């Protein structure tokens, strides 16, 4: 069977499989409970705690349909996506070489790891005020905080991945006449690739969490209040909906972020599978 054929077959069997129906049933029950809970005041005369205050899914769906046709909603989603991409790509571009350098050079590791380990536990959001102070524009502050979200995860994964490469691979490569560069290119790089994929998949999830919070905190500033070039984004969209009292919009914003995070992790996993074919089963 060709790759495409196999893919289609897998996709088809996914929709008929037990797993799919179990998942679908779970989501349906969840939505039903939510709908009933939201209408509890009307149905039972008293509001269920927590869920009784949340807009009903039917309302959310209606609002979602309305917003999908709204260019400004897509503008917010676009702004957040671009920030995630910028921060994430910068974290990859700086984090992978840094992690490799720390894994390869004992001296460099000794110098940089203590600093790295002190900075690593600081939550990205704790950087927001400092970022606003030392970056000239608000956009750069948000991008920087987003970058931090993925950066530490990627570096830690690269170091761990490189250190767990079987020492016999180096011995074998050396015996067969490999130069240092050859060992780096053909042993260390492919050896850490699976860890880079894991770091990237986890990192981009953190990036979404961070960008939204950063937008909420800084996006409502002078430029942000107009939803202009600076500020904006899904985080600001949610905050703005809250301030404006449009509760269904809040939920739509939340769901959009969930879908975006899921989609970006799924895309990275696919790219990862394509880049590490030796890990495939069968």
């Amino acid at each position, binding site marked *: 069977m060709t790759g495409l054929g196999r893919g289609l077959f897998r996709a088809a069997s996914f929709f008929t499989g037990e797993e799919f129906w179990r998942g679908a049933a779970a989501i349906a029950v969840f939505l039903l409970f939510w709908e009933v809970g939201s209408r509890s005041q009307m149905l039972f005369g008293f509001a269920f705690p927590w869920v009784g205050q949340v807009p009903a899914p039917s309302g959310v769906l209606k609002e979602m349909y309305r917003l999908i046709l709204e260019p400004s909603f897509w503008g917010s989603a676009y702004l957040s996506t671009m920030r995630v991409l910028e921060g994430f790509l910068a974290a990859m571009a700086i984090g992978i070489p840094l992690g490799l350098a720390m894994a390869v050079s004992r001296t460099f590791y000794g110098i940089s790891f203590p600093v790295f380990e002190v900075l690593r536990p600081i939550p990205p959001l704790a950087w927001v005020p400092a970022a606003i102070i030392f970056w000239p524009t608000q956009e750069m502050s948000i991008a920087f905080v987003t970058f931090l979200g993925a950066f530490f995860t990627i570096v830690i994964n690269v170091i761990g991945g490189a250190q767990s490469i*079987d020492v*016999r*691979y180096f*011995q*074998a*490569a*050396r*015996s*067969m*006449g*490999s*130069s240092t560069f*050859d060992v780096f290119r*053909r*042993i260390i790089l*492919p*050896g850490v*690739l699976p860890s880079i994929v894991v770091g990237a998949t986890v990192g981009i999830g953190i990036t979404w969490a961070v960008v939204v919070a950063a937008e909420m905190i800084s996006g409502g500033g002078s430029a942000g209040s107009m939803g202009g070039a600076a500020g904006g984004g899904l985080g600001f969209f949610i905050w703005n909906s809250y301030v404006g009292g449009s509760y269904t919009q809040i939920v739509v914003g939340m769901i959009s972020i969930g879908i975006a995070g899921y989609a970006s992790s799924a895309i990275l996993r696919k790219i990862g599978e394509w880049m*590490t*074919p*030796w*890990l495939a089963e*069968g």
Partner: protein
Amino acid sequence: MAMQHAFHVQPSASSRSAAPAALGGQIAVQNVSKTYGAEGFAKEVVHNCSFTIERGKLTVMIGPSGCGKSTLIRLVAGFERPSSGAITVDDKPVTGPGVDRLVVFQETALFPWMTTYDNIMYGPRARHEDTPEMREFAEALLEKVGLSAFRKKYPAQLSGGMQRRAELARSMINRPKVMILDEPFRGLDAMTKRLMQAYYANLYDEFRRTTFFVTTDIDEAIYLADRILIMTNIPTQVRAVIDVNLPRPRQVENITESDEANAIKMQALSLLHEEAMKSFARGSKAAADFVEAYSKRMNKG
């Protein structure tokens, strides 16, 4: 299927006469000691050990497990340096790993991210020798180890026996003077192990490359060896050298019925038993020390 095909290849008279005359590769280990750990906590693993791996012969090293055989392999391969003593290949001192001495590791050390073919071509490519002749040689080796149909598979997609054969091919393409095998068939099931031994014996008969083969299996040792080095318990030394002059090519059935082979086996087993008992005694002493120290501490507390 391809596996069976490979095992049915008998070394024909013509292929044996076409085999290259014994390549170089006489290894001499002279008064080598190896100690690990910082001063005060030092542990001597190899003590004043001397032996030779003779050119064109298959020398099997056998000894109690944990006696320091793998350490000797790392020293001969050049991954580590001896604490004292000297190791030479054709009278030239060993200063590091080299393509003249290639190791086939315990379990598998194939690069997981390379296909069978890329693994085999690793050495030539590393030395910028990706020539048509080399590619042809790689094809011939793939054929010889019965993995032509598995050239594009990754190591994880091969069975244990296939992995060992791929690793043999990955070493052989570099035409090493000496092949070093560290318990290469360990971890295989009994059936596959028997097949691999027969297969490896054929391969050796064909190329007659100087070989240093380490094992803990006495039957494997007698079936394959020209010479057997029996090692003492840790810190290890050569306890005895036994020449095995059984005619080649050998058949497992003939070996089990041969009086000479059985005499060698009895001799080797009694020596190994003595060494194993020493390690047992040492183990008991360590246990006794522990019990003593423990009871002292309990009394104090």
